[in-house]
């Protein structure tokens, strides 16, 4: 069995071989890009968030009457809600915020160091107005300065002090301490460890937090709870009832763990990756059917040829290997063509969705998957070929 002979065999059925090669190439291209997208989604879902995703609950809520959405009734409502939440067994800390985290976008604005506006001006930084326990709920580390202990109000003359996440502090004040420095939104009182804010921001870890009451809750607000280990589910079950008992004139949009919030954030990517995976699996099935039927047809057509080979001393094993080799050679050529197709498809897809470039090991992996599938598909027809008796050769005479 030599390579030129294998090529010759493939060339005797040009059309069938070309069709098979095209299928294999496109299948590999799709498989490769699907794996790439699935890998990217997996990385996004597993990137560090700086948050305890499982034991932090988020309630998105809005009072349904205009009176409750305005001060002083709003302040009273927030206090009553926080007190009720703190009294739920299993709740370690509770806080309010004008918005949640792990969001696509939301309330954000520009932040800059007033002494270096031109360089430091950073747009789309999430701006949080929170209660003092917010940091306890998040479980973040204080890296510099002291956290504000009391809520303070915005006045024409002074703004509440600002807490920055580490990445933003380093960006605004490179190689300097940020504490005590003046921003356009107030002076910096502390720097905390990073946490994931908004995806549309310049950097997902940039966040600016002020301990003060929300400006307005016309878009609703967020209640955040930190629970004891293993208590999240029990606490969650009580939340709606407890909040309704505190104040019935509210609309609860959703109650989620931060893990669910993260899933929600990447829902589209997850959906597309799942669809492509299903499609890739279907494509592999289609390719397997094609390889199976092609080999099966060839075995039926080439019975006499196989019989002659057997009569001339070819072993069953040799016949089996020869048929497998034809499939492997096709797959190898298809894989090489497929890498080119994959590059083209990757370019096409990256025009409409965010997709990383191909790396060197993915073609090897997907090529191996394709080879395995094709081998599986042609195994049975190749086995049938080994059953062809040498006596069949006599029919050729």
């Amino acid at each position: 069995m030599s390579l030129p002979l294998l090529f010759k065999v493939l060339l005797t059925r040009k059309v069938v071989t070309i069709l098979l090669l095209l299928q294999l190439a496109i299948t590999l291209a799709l498989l490769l890009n699907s794996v790439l997208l699935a890998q990217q989604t997996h990385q996004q879902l597993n990137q560090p968030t700086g948050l305890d995703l499982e034991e932090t609950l988020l309630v998105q809520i809005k009072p349904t009457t205009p009176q409750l959405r305005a001060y002083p009734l709003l302040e009273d409502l927030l206090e009553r809600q926080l007190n009720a939440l703190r009294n739920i067994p299993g709740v370690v800390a509770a806080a309010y915020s004008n918005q949640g985290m792990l969001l696509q976008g939301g309330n954000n604005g520009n932040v800059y160091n007033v002494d270096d506006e031109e360089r430091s001006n950073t747009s789309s930084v999430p701006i949080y107005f929170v209660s003092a326990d917010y940091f306890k709920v998040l479980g973040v580390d204080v890296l510099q300065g002291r956290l504000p202990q009391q809520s303070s109000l915005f006045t024409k003359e002074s703004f509440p002090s600002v807490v920055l996440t580490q990445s933003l502090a380093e960006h605004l004040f490179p190689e300097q301490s940020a504490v005590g420095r003046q921003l356009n939104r107030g002076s910096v009182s502390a720097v905390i460890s990073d946490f994931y804010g908004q995806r549309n921001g310049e950097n997902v870890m940039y966040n600016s937090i002020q301990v003060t009451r929300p400006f307005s809750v016309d878009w609703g607000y967020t209640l955040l709870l930190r629970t004891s280990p293993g208590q999240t589910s029990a606490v969650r079950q009580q939340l709606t009832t407890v909040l309704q008992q505190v104040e019935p004139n509210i609309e609860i949009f959703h109650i989620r763990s931060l893990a669910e919030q993260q899933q929600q954030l990447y829902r589209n990517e997850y959906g597309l990756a799942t669809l492509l995976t299903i499609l890739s699996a279907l494509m592999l099935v289609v390719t397997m059917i094609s390889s199976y039927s092609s080999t099966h047809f060839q075995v039926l057509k080439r019975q006499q040829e196989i019989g002659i080979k057997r009569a001339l001393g070819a072993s069953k094993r040799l016949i089996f290997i020869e048929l497998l080799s034809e499939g492997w050679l096709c797959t190898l050529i298809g894989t090489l063509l497929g890498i080119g197709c994959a590059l083209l498809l990757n370019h096409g897809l990256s025009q409409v969705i965010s997709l990383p470039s191909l790396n060197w090991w993915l073609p090897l992996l997907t090529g191996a998957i394709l080879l395995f599938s094709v081998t599986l598909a042609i195994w049975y027809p190749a086995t049938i070929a080994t059953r062809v008796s040498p006596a069949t050769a006599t029919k050729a005479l």
Partner: protein
Amino acid sequence: MEQFIYYLKVSLLSIKRAPLPYALTVFILSVGLGVFFANATFYYQLNSDPLPHKSDKLFFPMTLITPNDCNNCRPPRVLSYSNVQKLSASDIPSAQAAMYSSDGYARLSVDQPPTPVSIRITQRDFFKMFEVPLLHGSMWADDEAHNEVLLTRAMALKLLGRTDVVGESILLDDRNVSVIGVLDDWQMLPRLYDANGRNHLSAGEDIFLPLETGYDLNYLSRTNSQTFDDTDYRQLATEGRTGALHQLQYWVQLDTEEQQQAYKQFMQSLAEDEKAAGRHPAPINNQLVPMRNIVDYFGDDPGDIKAFALVTLLFLVVCLFNASHLALNRYLSNQYEFSLRRALGASRSQLQLQMLADVLLMTFLSITGALIIGYAGVSLMNTLLPRNSLFSDWNLTLMAGLMLTAFFCSYLVTLYPSIRASFGSLNQQLKE
């Protein structure tokens, strides 16, 4: 007809002789067409023109009249109240309306639980420009209307249990407003007047409130708002009307090329006047975007459907190659029968007619399979990409498209094998 029935019988006999290859061919064609059709449904609906006869006459004007200097900046996606006032001073457009959307709670009395409602806060011409049908009552007399609302048919039924509710009073966020009209069933999809931030993929609003009332009652935009100065957004009725608080979408209807040119000139003059007055520090950058291009302009085209469209098209190609490959094997297996027919006097055109009967049978079977797989595909896509779920309906055009595609694909799959079977050397074929 008799001949056609005979051809069909021959086709069925041929299928019975080798059912597996035929079933595989139909299966592969059905899978390819079904997956393609599921995606084509979304792609077609998402890219359809909701107002084909006037989408080239509706424009979204945007200017860079903000207090900040900014090089290479695009104009904000939303306009301030004061900028809208300046733009609406022109009498060039046949119609013009500013708008935004907000959320609220409606009920009939304070004893009832509130119903969450979405509100479009807009001006009179909105209904004319986007051809909104009226069931009862009337539109606002002018843009100075206050505390008068129009309800959708569904909202009227939900709140009051009937549709003829003109003159009734409801509580919108516990403030009295009177119903002056009820809209007939209307769903503009995609909702291109609200393309900002992919809102065009979502359902329409429940209640329509006059713009002035929206500002008076401090309704904030629920989608996109930007402040370019220290305007307090809680003071929409006062500071919101004068400051650089941008939250308005603005549409104008320009019916002719002359109107469009004149309006561009008007926007240029306005920007120059503002620059001269020191209210436009940034370089002039006006945009007048037609409705059919607005999604592309904002860059809010959902890439997931486009990406999947590319992939499903490739998948269909693979399935066609595969089905063609299977069909070729099947025809080559039946080569002897074909040759025998030719030897007995059947012409090539008669063999092609026989093939056409095969194609029709395959089209019928593959359409049935494709519809089942397509339906499952649409359901799966609705689960995995729920944002597009409003665009999953099948209509007559789509069905006709599917049938034509299925016929074309079946023909394509059978074409080469049948030609090969009909045109080979007769002697050679009979010996094989």
